């Protein structure tokens, strides 16, 4: 880090919070301080969720040569004498969707276990929101500075599996239960490469604190190149594995088998309707956002600017820009790739990603052991590290697909 720009924009939200807090009497101040943080996260990421859904629908539509939702404008409020007729490019669609989901009838099957059926969506949303607590959104914007922040992140995420099981089992529906088991198999399989892809970062930085991890990516190489972990061989491999595992963990295409929209009924959500279904949907997007945020924090430099001369832009804006970039990438992947089969999915995890992630941990260990190498040895360090990444990828990929000629497609003339 060169200069710490304490510009007005950088400090403005903090100043606003402090101003609001000091209005209250003393004993309430710490409570207000934390409540404001919580409400800010809920508001920002609630809106972010709303606009992620509309962005996804719009982008997917463009990728499929459609228009997407473009009709929702502003409602005519009867008090107002005029009505703004503009459709706002359909940007108010998520709010219409929210109203629809809220007013829909909530149907619970007669045989269902009512308590668990109710509890599952609550747990899944609560725990997916909890993961946001340890993401550093900006230089000074870390809700909770934990020493074991990464461990907390994955511990909070672990409850999602439980909620999926509860949803599937409490519905008293064979298909729900089977789909829940499939979803669990997927989540458990991909938890391993996800965590293994994060270990190299912990190994190199020597800390589990997200704040310290971002700070350690802070200085510039040659004065202008960012020192983000994605620009090292082990970091790049880790980032790719992380991306794939994150896609699978958040049930995104091409790993969206648990509730493949076009093939199954709705997986473990079959018996959910109305706002409970919306809660699951919301939790899925929160999980995706949180995992993207973690990816940004670990590999893409967190809130750091990519170049020194761009540091005048507030850090939280950089974080949000990177986050939006990740989400756009995930939407792009969804529009591009085909869905996997369950056996292909688990095989990809256990035969390909886990060995590569394990090797990548060794690669990071090599990187740590050779930090003192300088001059031409630095080139050797990069070379060896690159070889550790590329050769296993190449040979493992070759051996796994050995004997399979490229499939030939024949079309009717």
């Amino acid at each position: 880090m060169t200069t710490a720009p304490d510009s007005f924009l950088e400090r403005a939200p903090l100043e606003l919070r402090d101003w609001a807090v000091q209005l209250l009497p003393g004993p309430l101040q710490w409570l207000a301080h934390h409540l404001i943080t919580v409400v800010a996260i809920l508001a920002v990421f609630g809106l972010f969720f709303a606009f992620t859904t509309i962005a996804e629908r719009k982008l997917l539509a463009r990728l499929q040569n459609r228009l997407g939702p473009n009709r929702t404008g502003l409602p005519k409020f009867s008090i107002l004498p005029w009505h703004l007729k503009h459709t706002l490019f359909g940007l108010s669609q998520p709010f219409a969707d929210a109203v629809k989901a809220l007013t829909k009838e909530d149907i619970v099957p007669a045989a269902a276990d009512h308590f668990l059926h109710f509890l599952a969506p609550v747990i899944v949303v609560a725990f997916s929101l909890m993961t946001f607590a340890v993401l550093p959104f900006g230089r000074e914007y870390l809700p909770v500075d934990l020493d074991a922040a990464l461990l907390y992140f994955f511990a909070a995420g672990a409850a999602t599996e439980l909620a999926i099981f509860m949803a599937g089992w409490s519905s008293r529906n064979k298909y729900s239960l089977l789909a829940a088991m499939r979803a669990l198999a997927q989540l458990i399989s991909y938890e391993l490469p996800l965590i293994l892809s994060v270990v190299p970062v912990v190994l190199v930085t020597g800390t589990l604190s997200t704040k310290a991890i971002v700070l350690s990516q802070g200085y510039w190489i040659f004065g202008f190149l960012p020192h983000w972990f994605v620009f090292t061989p082990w970091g790049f491999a880790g980032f790719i594995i992380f991306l794939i595992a994150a896609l699978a963990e958040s049930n995104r295409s091409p790993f969206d088998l648990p509730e493949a929209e076009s093939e199954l009924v709705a997986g473990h959500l079959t018996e959910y309707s109305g706002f409970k279904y919306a809660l699951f949907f919301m939790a899925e997007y929160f999980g995706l956002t949180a995992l993207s945020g973690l990816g940004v924090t670990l590999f893409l430099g967190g809130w750091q600017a990519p170049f020194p001369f761009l540091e005048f832009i507030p850090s939280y804006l950089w974080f949000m820009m990177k986050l939006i970039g990740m989400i756009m990438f995930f939407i792009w992947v969804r529009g591009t790739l085909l869905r996997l089969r369950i056996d292909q999915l688990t095989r990809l995890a256990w035969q390909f990603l886990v060995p590569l992630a394990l090797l990548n941990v060794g690669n990071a260990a090599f990187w740590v052991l050779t930090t003192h190498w300088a001059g031409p040895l630095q080139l050797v360090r990069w070379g060896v590290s690159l070889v550790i990444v590329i050769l296993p990828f190449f040979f493992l990929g070759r051996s796994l697909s050995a004997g399979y000629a490229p499939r030939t497609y024949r079309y009717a003339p």
Partner: protein
Amino acid sequence: MTLALIFIAVLMLGSAALAMLLRNLIYSALLLIVSWAGVAAFYLWAGAEFVAFAQVLVYVGAISMVVLFAVLLTRQNHSAELPVEPATKARAATAILSAACLGAILAAAILSTSFHHTAAEAPATSVRQIGLELMHRQGAALLIVGVILTVALLGATILAATDPKRKPEDAP
């Protein structure tokens, strides 16, 4: 602080007791998970963040899945939710005997421990210190555990990798 401790203790013990009383195995398993979460809450209360998160990650995240899968895969009969009487007197006697043995061991352990009545000072341990301690003093144990887990992981990968020849459309 004491109030929180009492709440956590009631949560832990209550959910464990309910888990034993209920006849629905899934309920029991879920309540057991609540009890484990209570243990994590207790660690948090005691200021051991790292252990608490590890407890949640391992017990609530992983072991709970093993338990739930085991329950679902083994439950065969439809009468599992009906109340089951202790079948024979021998079985009841064995149950009481084993409970008494466990109780005796626990009581002996509690009675033979001398509690210091001075105000305990919470040691300020960071994850870094825990890591250094594990790497230096407990290095051998950590290494053995690590090797065992890695071998298990590699074994799983090899088991998954050696399946019979597949059809071309099975290509990963």
